[in-house]
């Protein structure tokens, strides 16, 4: 069965966020590292640790200057129009390009429409340059999290087949995380 993942929630109370995720049909979440290791969490780091870790992590940045860095796993796209041309030129293959739905939520109808067109465009770009589109909630509390079924409806709205998206995301995470950490079976 395919796992649904929300790779960005910003909250130090991971126990609560994991409980909410379970209710909402999200199997795994992504969060900043606060020192405690929990199951079903992929940690977001801003620098690559010097040693192999015992927790899964992705190195994340939203700084355009770090886009072509070899250690970067996930680049946060905050203003697609501005970075589109740089993305085409500088992005490395197999990198993840992430969009926060919390940013879109704040916009009015007109801008939401534009955002969705940009996500469709970004998805096409990702397919052409072998990158992975990542849609995340960017939730700061359980009340801002998004259910798995709602993720599916948003993906359909962006002309992305949900099954395909979750499968590709799973494969991408396996490649990115598998090489870098050691987790006991």
């Amino acid at each position, binding site marked *: 069965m395919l796992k649904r993942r929300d790779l960005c929630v910003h909250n130090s109370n991971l126990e*609560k966020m994991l*409980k*909410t995720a*379970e*209710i*909402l049909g999200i199997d795994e979440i992504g969060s900043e590292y606060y020192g405690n290791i929990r199951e079903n969490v992929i940690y977001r780091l801003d620098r690559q640790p010097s040693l192999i870790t015992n927790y899964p992590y992705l190195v994340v940045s939203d700084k355009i200057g770090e886009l072509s860095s070899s250690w970067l796993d996930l680049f946060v796209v905050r203003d697609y129009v501005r970075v589109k041309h740089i993305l085409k030129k500088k992005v490395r293959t197999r990198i993840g390009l992430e969009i926060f*739905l919390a940013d*879109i*939520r*704040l916009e*009015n*109808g007109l801008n*939401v*429409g534009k955002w969705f067109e940009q996500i469709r465009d970004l998805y096409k770009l990702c397919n052409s340059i072998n990158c992975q589109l990542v849609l995340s909630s960017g939730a700061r509390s*359980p*009340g*801002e*999290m*998004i*259910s798995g*079924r*709602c993720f599916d*409806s*948003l993906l*359909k*709205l962006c002309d992305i087949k949900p099954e395909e998206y979750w499968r590709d995301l799973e494969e991408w995470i396996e490649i990115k995380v598998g090489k870098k950490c050691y987790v006991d079976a």
Partner: protein
Amino acid sequence: MLNRRDKRRYLAIWNGDHRYDRRKIVDAISKRSSELFGQIATEKARIRFIGVDEKEVIVIISCKLEMLGTLMSTIVLMQPPIVLLCISGTLKALRTRMERDSEKFFRAFR
């Protein structure tokens, strides 16, 4: 005789912070839906207020099945945010699930 009744879906929404007035939540959702998908799609969805749970933290609404995707997208894009907890084809099944999981909801959201 043909069954002409609309197929509907019932949705449970967490409103524990009372960000929205329980009766006005449908107006707020309809307004955002009109903004995003237009008046015709919103009217077609026939969003209705059904009720609230005993503790008045979960609001139940319903909509036409064919417009469920549109409504779910609208729910994600509501500001202030609201959370879709569960969906069911019958009100009875939804209420049963809510009763069964109410403690879980409270632990997660409160």
